[in-house]
């Protein structure tokens, strides 16, 4: 197999020489034979650029033979009447070799350069991947350990020193441990979801769903975390049932409500809005928080992306990328935009049955 490539190179030099010969035959009435050698020189240059040094030299050699045979009087013999042509042959051949060498060198250099830049690019990607993985690992171990530190601390305080603590302090420690255990549970759940989405093993159990019911489930599951927060629900009347995985979609809405709750002032209203737009269901969750700088909007759904905020807000940076994975598994899309009046809107668009029929 490897021999085929050089062979095909030499075959191509033969083709080039034949082409040069045909051209020379056409222009023979107008040109003296010495000038025809330029056409062959051109073939050598083409061979050098396209095929490399050896096929170029072969082209030069074949070119001399063809030129001699077809055009140098007496024609159609290899004999040469005018011995000056021998100088032409020699000059052509030497120029051919020099050209091929120079062109081949340039070619090799550029190939080498491409190889080097490819290697550099690969090294850069590898480095970036390594950095990302290290960052992920740091982030994961941090998020796993932080609640464990609080839980272990609170429990050991109660176990070793419980009798000296006030009932208020005991209560506080217990509540901390409980809240942190819940946080840990959510984080582990998020990690599992993310792993499943990334492994492509997310299995949808689609069933016809009522959007109001979906919103209701998410609100009920978030009841404790939302506390006194006002959530305004505005659903367009007459929304049809839509086929989706209720459990996963509830998870999506919960994540969006959780973000809106975390990243907007505690007194402000969160709005859930659903309507039909074209052949899609358009579902938005909006808050009145600081929004996101326009350049960051697209990064919002990246894994482990966290918006830079002055005070550290406990989040895993997984919520929105999980949402993206789930929404996309449903054939829908999710996007973020800033509200004109301030705040962030997360928009989910899901294809409605009519939409699929139209396709």
């Amino acid at each position: 197999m490897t021999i085929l490539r050089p062979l095909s190179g030499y075959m191509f030099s033969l083709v080039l020489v034949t082409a040069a010969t045909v051209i020379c035959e056409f222009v023979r009435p107008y040109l003296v034979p010495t000038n025809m050698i330029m056409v062959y020189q051109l073939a050598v240059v083409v061979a050098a650029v396209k095929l490399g040094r050896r096929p170029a030299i072969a082209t030069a050699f074949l070119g001399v033979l063809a030129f001699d045979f077809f055009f140098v009087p007496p024609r159609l013999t290899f004999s040469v009447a005018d011995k000056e042509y021998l100088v032409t042959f020699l000059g052509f051949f030497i120029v051919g070799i020099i050209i091929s060498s120079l062109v081949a060198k340039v070619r090799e250099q550029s190939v080498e350069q491409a190889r080097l830049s490819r290697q550099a690019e690969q090294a850069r990607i590898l480095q970036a991947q390594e950095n990302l993985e290290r960052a992920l690992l740091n982030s994961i171990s941090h998020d796993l350990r932080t609640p464990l530190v609080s839980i272990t601390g609170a429990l050991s305080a109660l176990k070793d020193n419980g009798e000296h603590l006030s009932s208020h302090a005991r209560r506080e420690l217990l509540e901390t441990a409980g809240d942190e255990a819940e946080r840990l549970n959510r984080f582990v759940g998020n990690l599992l979801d993310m792993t499943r989405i990334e492994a492509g093993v997310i299995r949808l159990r689609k069933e016809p769903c009522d959007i109001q019911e979906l919103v209701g489930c998410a609100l009920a599951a978030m009841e404790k975390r939302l506390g006194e927060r006002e959530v305004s629900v505005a659903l367009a009347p007459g929304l049809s049932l839509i086929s989706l995985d209720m459990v996963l979609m509830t998870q999506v809405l919960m994540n969006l409500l959780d973000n809106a709750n975390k990243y907007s002032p505690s007194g402000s209203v969160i709005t859930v809005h659903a309507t039909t737009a074209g052949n899609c269901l358009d579902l938005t969750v909006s808050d009145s928080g600081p929004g996101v700088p326009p350049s960051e909007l697209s990064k919002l759904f990246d894994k482990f992306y966290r918006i830079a905020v002055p005070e550290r807000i406990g989040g895993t940076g997984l919520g929105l990328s999980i949402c993206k994975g789930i929404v996309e598994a449903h054939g829908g899309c999710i996007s973020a935009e800033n509200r004109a009046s301030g705040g962030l809107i997360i928009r989910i668009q899901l294809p409605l049955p009519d939409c699929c029929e139209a396709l």
Partner: protein
Amino acid sequence: MTLIPSPSCQHRVLVIDDEAAIRRFLHSALSSDEFLLHEAESGHSGLSAVAGFRPEVVLLDLGLPDIDGIEVIRRIREWSQVPIIVLSVRDQEDDKVAALDAGADDYLTKPFGVGELLARMRASLRRSQTTTPEPVFLCGELVVDFSLRRVTVAETDVQLTPTEYDLLKLLTAHAGKVLTHSFILKQIWGIAYQDQPQILRVTISNVRKKIERDPARPKYITTEPGVGYRFKTAG
């Protein structure tokens, strides 16, 4: 002070779970004069304990080393109607539905709080002890008078279609218990409709519009995503 167990008023609870840590947690959490605990660490020992210990409530982990939890439920149900509460982890909606359809009464998703566990256990005990249904069902502002087929919310009459009424009646008759989609469909519409969940969705939505103050935040009929519906009882 020591509590002397008085068998007459203590409820016998059987825990079937292979995780020692969870048995230990349940043991401490349920140790009171209200409950008498028996622990089994496998399906087989659990099944024989159902016969020997005669529990009033069974707490069953689905992931047992020897027999599948669903199979344990089926074997218990062959001869006993003891309330079974399944302990399962998140993302096992299929298992929850299978467990409920096999005859389990309720499920709790791990990790769960003791308050939630006690509420479910007490609700199961209550249901198993009441044999004759009350003629009038009361919950918050909702009153369902079965003898008159009359439903009122905050003393205002609610007009339900016969199907909506049947659905509400079924849910209130099993108040506190999760009813799976296929169970409800079979009961209300018949076996032919078992694979037509949309009809159930629409009817639930209509009932909610008529009895709930805010149908987006239902207080009476709650949805268990991927599993079914539960008529929520106070407490």
